[in-house]
């Protein structure tokens, strides 16, 4: 420490003779933030505005330029397409059901990991794999696990006596939707657990003990003490997870490509199909943009629910 100070002391004169204007916080702050803000403005802000413009244009992938203004034509066409409504329904179903199961499985897991028994670290590594392996790689693995002939899922199901014939997981609309949701839950539950765990360990043990002394059972302690106290952390975690579920196309794209017969599309995969594979960039942008009101509602509801708990 003393050395640092004396080493810095040598510099004293040099800096005094040239008082830098940059040293003022009101100048240095904006200067340091500016590059990041500029980057975000150009590559997030501008595309965002462009998305809105594209949604009312007939732009396509092949030709350069931004296409002609076509008013609300893209939206009208979407509302008239059955696949759009299927995709919308699937998006909501997919998000709601997987949110429910992720929350349930994640909560139980958080309690198990919180016991901090021996080997917890080993368990943690294995149990976190669904979240840490890149989603594209695990999705393609699940496609192989749901194979029509060599499905390991079916083999295990038969070995355990749970099923007696081979369900065609990805070839039948309802089963395909169940598979897609299952993979999303599989991928997301470790994250829910980790978020919850981070919150739980931040609560002082004395508070829980006090509640215990006051006669609160484990469930009451969790609902009335733990949840309100970690509401902010839950809010951010839930939000992050919901945004991910609402806008993810990887699982659908790799498992079913929206099939069979376009029954398993979600808005994100449908936007990709329309915008890139069919090349109708404008209409694709309109599809993706329709996620915004849903996102807004989700953010609003999550915020309100957790606020109300936070008395």
């Amino acid at each position, binding site marked *: 420490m003393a050395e640092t100070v004396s080493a810095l002391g040598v510099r004293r004169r040099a800096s005094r003779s040239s008082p830098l204007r940059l040293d003022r916080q009101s100048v240095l702050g904006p200067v340091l933030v500016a590059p990041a803000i500029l980057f975000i403005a150009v*590559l997030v802000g501008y595309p965002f505005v462009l998305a809105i413009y594209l949604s009312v244009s007939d732009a396509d992938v092949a030709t350069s330029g931004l296409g002609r203004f076509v008013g609300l034509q893209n939206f009208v066409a979407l509302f008239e397409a059955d696949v759009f409504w299927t995709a919308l329904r699937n998006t909501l179903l997919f998000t709601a059901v997987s949110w429910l199961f992720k929350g349930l499985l994640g909560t139980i897991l958080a309690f198990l990991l919180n016991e901090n028994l021996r080997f917890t670290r080993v368990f943690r590594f294995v149990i976190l*794999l669904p979240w840490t392996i890149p989603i594209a790689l695990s999705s393609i693995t699940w496609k192989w696990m749901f194979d029509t002939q060599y499905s390991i899922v079916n083999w295990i199901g038969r070995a355990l006596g749970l099923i007696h014939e081979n369900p065609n997981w990805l070839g039948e609309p309802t089963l395909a939707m169940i598979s897609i949701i299952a993979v999303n839950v599989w991928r997301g539950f470790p994250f829910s657990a980790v978020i919850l765990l981070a919150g739980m360990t931040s609560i002082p043990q004395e508070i829980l003990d006090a509640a215990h002394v006051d006669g609160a059972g484990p469930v009451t302690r969790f609902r009335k003490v733990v949840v309100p106290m970690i509401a902010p952390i839950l809010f951010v975690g839930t939000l992050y997870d919901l945004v991910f579920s609402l806008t993810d196309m990887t699982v659908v794209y790799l498992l079913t490509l929206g099939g069979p017969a376009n029954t398993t599309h979600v808005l994100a995969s449908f936007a990709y199909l329309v915008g890139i594979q069919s090349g109708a960039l404008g209409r694709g942008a309109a599809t993706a943009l329709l996620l915004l009101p849903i996102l807004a509602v989700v953010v609003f509801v999550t915020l309100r629910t957790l606020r109300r708990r936070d008395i």
Partner: protein
Amino acid sequence: MAAAAAYAAERRQSRRALRKKLLVYAGLCVYAVVAGLPVYWMFITAFKPNPDLYNLKAFPLFFNEHGVTLEHVALLFNKTGFTTWAGNTLIVAVAVVLITLLFAVPAGYALARLRFRGAESLTIGIFMTYLVPTTLLFLPLVKIISTIGLFDKLGSLIVAYPTFTIPFCTWLMAGFFKTVPFEIEEAAMVDGCSRLGAIARVVLPLSLTGMFTVAIFAFTLSMQDFIYALTFVTSSDQKVITVGVVTELIRGDVFFWGSLMAGALIAGVPVAILYTFFLDRFVAGITGGAVK
């Protein structure tokens, strides 16, 4: 008498504790099997010879009569662009990490340490940017990337990935800078260092762990992306590893499952290990400031 009762009570209690312990382990085992099965299945598939792999009578969960093979791995390395994709991934990763550090470290410092107008709303704004979904941006980004001549080139990803790594890592870095004691910096300034001097000599060296974590995250977040890599790049020799593995090992409707799983294993497991090591920081990052 009393001692015997106390002893019995103690034994009952320890038996209950043991039962609870066993229950917790059983629960963890169930979770581990469900979570780990796909990765185990990657491993088995990657090293099992085709005659066993596609034999409905063979026991699928382990190796069978033909033993273990490296032919899938060999095919992956010799007959596909796997090494090219791995190289591409490395180039993208290094470039994205450097760009992210260059932008996020100064921004993070300013937001954590300096008082200036709008600092607080900028902090929230940057976090919200991280929540802007890629699904919303990938179509307009196609236009932008074509305009600047990067479509179907690795460069497109080097430009696109910082859109989510910079906001996240700025947020992370801000958290780190808050943990560097203010007094150290002040002491340096009292001793005549300019603020920039104090940053360079005192604050940055103390934040090296933070920067290292940010670098790891810029890398793992880039590896998690699929939609940009799928959309912006179509030529085989420009693909990154994730997209290469899941698109190029399927010819028509024939899936080369052995090589596919070998590729997924080789690309996925290192990322998983890195990610797990830094997961606590990741959680601290996205929940940053939510809990004090």
